[in-house]
């Protein structure tokens, strides 16, 4: 999109957001005339503005945490329930996988700790890191 076109798109967008939801569509239609592409651009922006779910609506810190933050520091003790954490098996964008051993039974599992940033909001305040168990880790 060139800057002239962009000026036009945002001019209509900025006028539309001053209106109530109910009035917007008719306004966009009349402002864009038969330029369907223009109307499409404006409508996509209005939808995004309503959704507020892009990266830009997320806190930078949670993004920083997800990209470069330290997952391991969340595990303050090397104990997790009945499991003793032995070593990190793998680390990636979606969390850290630890090799762990059940202290009483002695069987080994892989436990994956998820970064909070990857979790739905309602789990984000949990005291404990979310985790998933993988029982098939005895051969690791």
């Amino acid at each position, binding site marked *: 999109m060139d800057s002239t076109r962009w000026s036009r798109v945002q001019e209509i967008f900025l006028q539309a957001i001053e209106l109530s939801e109910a009035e917007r569509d008719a306004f966009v239609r009349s402002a864009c005339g038969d330029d369907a592409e223009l109307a499409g651009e404006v409508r996509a922006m209005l939808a995004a503005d309503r959704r507020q779910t892009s*990266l830009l609506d997320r*806190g*930078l810190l*949670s993004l*920083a945490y997800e990209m470069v*933050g330290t997952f391991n520091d969340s595990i303050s003790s090397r104990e997790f329930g009945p499991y003793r954490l032995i070593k990190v098996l*793998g680390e990636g*964008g979606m969390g850290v996988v630890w090799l762990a051993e059940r202290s009483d039974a002695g069987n080994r599992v892989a436990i994956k700790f998820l970064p909070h940033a990857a979790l739905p909001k309602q789990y984000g305040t949990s005291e404990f890191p979310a985790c*998933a168990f993988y029982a098939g880790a005895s051969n690791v």
Partner: protein
Amino acid sequence: MQDDPHPRHSTGRSDGIPPSLQRRQLDEVFSQVYEELRRLAGAVRRNDPGANVSSTTLVHEAWLKLKDSPHLADTSVPHFKAIAARAMRQVLVDAARRRVAQKRGGKDDAIQITLDESIGLASSSDAELIELDRAIDKLALMNSRQAQVVECRFFGGLNVVEAATLLSVSESVIERDWRAAKAWLASALRPAAGS
């Protein structure tokens, strides 16, 4: 549109950064700020993101750490923040690129697959961040000030007043720029949705 080979490592786009600083000095400042922010971002702890701490904190901590450095003797706080915003963007995009490269190459053993695909969570934000970075570059061609507003506010944590001062426009201009730019970027990241 095309892959960009880290142009922001150089200081080619010097908007918002005082011309009094010589280019080489600016490069040194940038890399110093980059390293510091990368270190700080790397130390973000699990509970911080939920604590509603803003990016201002990272930039502020970087300032406290670096303000007495000789390279930064001529740099005011707003200009430092402008530099830091760009450095922060670069730190995160570089990290995202590394992570994507890591996923594609070499280490695709069982563990790696587990990390990426287990228990039905959406994939991480790497790709979206890289897309966002490119979309901001496209926005810069359409309206360079709006790209700066996004960079300052999102990556640098500048508030409306600070951004207005830095870019020498009114606060209402910053607010309009931000809202329109954010909506366009978000729609550009999800082209199929919402229309």
